[in-house]
């Protein structure tokens, strides 16, 4: 189809086929893609509201057996700088989040073999007991699958148990590119195949949870595979309607095994615009200022995004890969208004909670994102002793080792395999 006809089809609200979307992505100018994506955004959000959420991105552990080649965050079992946050530490983070108007934790972490399902259930219950209104947006699909494997329970049952303990919604992390060829190359096929990732979301939606969806691009995927990812999300959304929003970001290569260079700012804007055109059944697209910086983050609002994501307060994963951008609520609101939009605070369901909180009461400015822990803090939370570890190192640390196991020299951990 000629480019003008494709543009006309989008403007008339038509659904793009895969080949049509690919043609636009490959051959349309940045300006045309932006113009079309902005048109879709304006159709879906004629009120010119751009939302954001005040929440905190807490990574409860960096110990992970998945070892994805694009990840700079994980530490091996037994690593000296591996950590698990204690319940009290997490409560402190929630207190700090509530103090600046925050409404939820985005809680994700590594696949730690020494944290059984009961640890998560106890954590969620105790959070809900202390903070009944506070939301838990927690555990991406690969973490749910990891818990399913660890507990030998089917995914729907794990989800039900987590919901019963207090889970409110599931973040769309760990999707990377939902094509198994890519997942094998990135060493993330083992943690979740494309079908498994989508299945977790299907079960979550059926169980009544809303979730987000993500895409990490710029590693080894082709244009076709980037598009296939979007089409698979669109199909599931047609089926369940459970996704609230889509977030895409570029692979951050520093300190990763995969290495290489980061996709460019223009590639980000083109990919975001493509997503806005293909994901016609998604209401919201978030800007990833954490990976793109405030400026391209703000420009996202002209290329299809209608949400500035999170005033994160804390971030560990992207920082580990070299990016360190920070925007507090004041800065996010300034960027939204400068782009001609109306800033509104929201929750995970995109219910509008109000205007900027700093205009209602004094909130301290935040010029740096917090980290999970202070450097050098190697403390082990006391409650961990109550949970059975699975790795040998974990058992030794918790005094749960078999009588003869202390004699063996340390070697590769069986839980990794």
């Amino acid at each position: 189809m000629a480019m003008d006809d494709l543009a006309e089809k989008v403007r008339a609200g038509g659904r793009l086929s895969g080949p049509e979307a690919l043609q636009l992505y490959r051959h349309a100018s940045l300006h045309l893609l932006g113009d079309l994506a902005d048109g879709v955004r304006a159709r879906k959000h004629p009120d010119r509201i751009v939302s954001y959420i005040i929440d905190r991105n807490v990574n409860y552990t960096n110990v992970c057996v998945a070892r994805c080649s694009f990840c700079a965050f994980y530490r091996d079992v037994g690593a000296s700088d591996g950590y698990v946050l204690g319940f009290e530490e997490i409560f402190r983070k929630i207190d700090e989040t509530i103090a600046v108007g925050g409404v939820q934790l985005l809680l994700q972490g590594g696949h730690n073999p020494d944290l059984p399902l009961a640890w998560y259930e106890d954590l969620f219950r105790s959070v809900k007991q202390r903070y009944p209104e506070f939301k838990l947006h927690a555990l991406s699909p690969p973490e749910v699958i990891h818990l399913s494997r660890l507990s030998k329970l089917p995914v729907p049952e794990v989800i039900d148990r987590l919901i019963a303990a207090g889970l409110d919604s599931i973040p769309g992390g760990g999707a990377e590119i939902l094509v198994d060829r890519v997942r094998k190359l990135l060493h993330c096929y083992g943690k979740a195949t494309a079908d498994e990732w989508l299945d977790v979301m299907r079960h979550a939606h059926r169980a009544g949870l809303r979730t987000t969806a993500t895409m990490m691009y710029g590693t080894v995927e082709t244009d076709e595979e980037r598009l296939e990812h979007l089409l698979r999300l669109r199909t599931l959304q047609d089926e369940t309607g459970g996704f609230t929003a889509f977030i895409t970001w570029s692979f951050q290569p520093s300190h990763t095994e995969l290495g290489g260079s980061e996709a460019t700012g223009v590639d980000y804007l083109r990919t975001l615009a493509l997503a806005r055109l293909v994901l016609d059944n998604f209401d919201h697209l978030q800007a990833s200022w954490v990976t793109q910086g405030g400026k391209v983050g703000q420009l996202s609002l002209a290329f299809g995004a209608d949400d500035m994501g999170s005033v994160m307060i804390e971030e560990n994963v992207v920082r580990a890969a070299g990016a360190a951008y920070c925007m507090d609520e004041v800065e996010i609101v300034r960027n939204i208004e400068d782009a001609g939009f109306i800033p509104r605070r929201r929750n995970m369901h995109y219910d509008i909670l109000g205007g900027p909180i700093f205009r209602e009461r004094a909130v301290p400015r935040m010029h740096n994102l917090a980290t999970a822990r202070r450097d050098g803090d190697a403390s082990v939370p006391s409650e961990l002793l109550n949970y059975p570890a699975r790795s040998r190192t974990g058992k030794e640390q918790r005094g749960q080792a078999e009588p003869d196991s202390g004699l063996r020299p340390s070697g590769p951990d069986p839980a990794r395999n």
Partner: protein
Amino acid sequence: MVANITRKVDAGESLSEADLTELLAPHQLISLMTLADRVRRRRHGTRTTFVRVQQVSGSGPLPPRASGAGELQIVGAPPTVDSALARIEETLAIAGEVPVSAFELSDLDRLAAGAGLSLRTLLERLREAGLELVADAAVDRLPKKEAAIEAVNMAGLILARASLTSGPGHPPIESLRQVADLQRSVGVLRTFRPLPRRIDPERPTTGYADIREVALARLLVDNVEMIQVDWTLYGPKLAQVALAAGADDVDQVPALEPPREGRAGAAEVRGNVEAAGFTPAERNGRFDER
């Protein structure tokens, strides 16, 4: 309305205040980028030049020359005429064939006044010491812009860039028109950097403001050949997007060997230029292709 503005731009007609007010509305950002891109492509096609610059401080030990440098730029305001002359001579001694640029014109204007010299006399002395290029003229800091830039010309020097210290501001139209007027009178500006050189860390410029200013500069400063964006100051992402908004020259690509991680290296700039759909061409400080 935008269709009518596009027609005017294509016909080379000047834009009215109403046209500009319309284009400055945030929701017209992409229309503004599109127009600036049309003008830029008419002038330069897809060609995008870049220059690798090695900055040299005004005093202290000189670093070894980076092999990739296309310009050695002496930065900072010289405290005395003698120190300026000495630094030029020292830098020339390591420069080889690489063009040397030095100082900002309003700093030199003040230095000349303090030393009881005319600006032209000072510039002639710098020229005699071997200087080829005045590194920058911050036109918003020059009290007598035309005279100062003409003095550069008459002293036999070339002005490497013209810029705005505080940026065009809001609304940016007036200061950009002044740059165009200045060029009508002096005719020697080859490049113009519209984005502010001074950035308030508490309140950095936004992506919208930066892109709007680059695009407006391309539309309003239509008599200066090249619109520049600074790779080091604005970062690869913003610099790359600026190429789609009228900029055609990437300044201050660090000349570091081997390329340091992040913002460095000719290969990274070339990759960014190509990924934005343009054709990279490296130049040196004399504007010669390398």
